[in-house]
């Protein structure tokens, strides 16, 4: 199966690979997995406590090219957004941007789950009431 140029680009030059200090209160960590293919994805966000803007985002994904590209794109997109804005990112947006084939749609779902899980973790740490949707994803 041929990957789209955008997938290849994100896969060969992944943005924002790395680790944020998970012990600080500004950092939220989401660790999600797709048991069907054995992929694991960790996405972290660093949130400005005053403005609730996501100032930094890092990811580390063990999985296929589409999973790596999806999480790379997700970190690009959440940066500069407020946590509430970031929650509006949908997996279908990722599918469209990367032109993912149907069999790889679950990679984009994983990336959306990772964003929600990271935000959920940050909210829990900071005593922010979770929106119902994020609460489900963070479980």
């Amino acid at each position: 199966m041929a990957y789209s140029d955008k997938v290849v680009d994100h896969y060969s030059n992944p943005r924002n690979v790395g680790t944020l200090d998970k012990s600080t209160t500004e950092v939220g960590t989401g660790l999600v997995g797709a048991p069907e293919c054995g992929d694991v994805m960790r996405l972290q966000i660093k949130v400005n406590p005053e403005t609730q803007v996501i100032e930094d985002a890092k990811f580390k994904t063990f999985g296929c090219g589409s999973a790596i590209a999806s999480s790379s794109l997700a970190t690009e997109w959440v940066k500069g957004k407020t946590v509430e804005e970031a929650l509006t990112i949908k997996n279908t947006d990722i599918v469209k941007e990367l032109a993912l084939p149907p069999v790889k749609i679950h990679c984009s779902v994983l990336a959306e789950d990772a964003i929600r899980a990271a935000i959920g973790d940050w909210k829990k740490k900071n005593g922010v009431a979770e929106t119902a949707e994020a609460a489900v994803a963070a479980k």
Partner: protein
Amino acid sequence: MLKTADNAVPVACWSCSVAKTPETLFCQHCSKIQPPLEGDFYSVFNLERKLNLDLAALEREFHRLTRKLHPDNFARATETEQAWSLADTAMVNDAYRTLKDPIRRTEYLLMLEGAQIGEEHSGKNRVDPSRVPADLLEEVFDLNMQLEEMRAARKLGETDAALEADLQTAKIKFDGLMADVDEQLKTQWGVWDQGDEATRKSAMTNMVSLIDRRNYIRNLVRDVNEALGS
């Protein structure tokens, strides 16, 4: 062991009109080929839905059916019969390949029994999103990180004896984890095969999570083998 469903209505053979069991490739009376089966892979071999199978018997039955379905036997048959023999051959092949492999067989049975398994149930289609336990994810993530560090170091330092030893240790560990999972799966096979409805249900839940765990470990095994160049 011949299986008859509760609602099995005897079906007449299209050729000799004698009643035959519905799930059969050939009429027991006139031996003529029958329309392709509507049943599952187990029904192809007249097997009950069990996980411990007699693989030698399965192979013999596979060869017997393949011989009977060989195109040479249908050279002078009607076009319909020729088409049936092709369709049957394809199904017999698929059924054999699926049932002889222990993992594919387990996944197939779980799917037949309605478990949410396979890529079509991943992501948003997953009914139970909390299926992956957090501690398993942490463990797998950490193992992947270690493995990646080792591989990166290997790329830079070429043949580092200590690193080679680390990779070997990792391989032994992952192989061990895999063997554990397979052992636990076998135990659940027994529970399934002998169980009543309630124990079967719990065996199914256990097998689904074991298969999940196995997928993660399988990737680790693959990656460590790749790093070791084997």
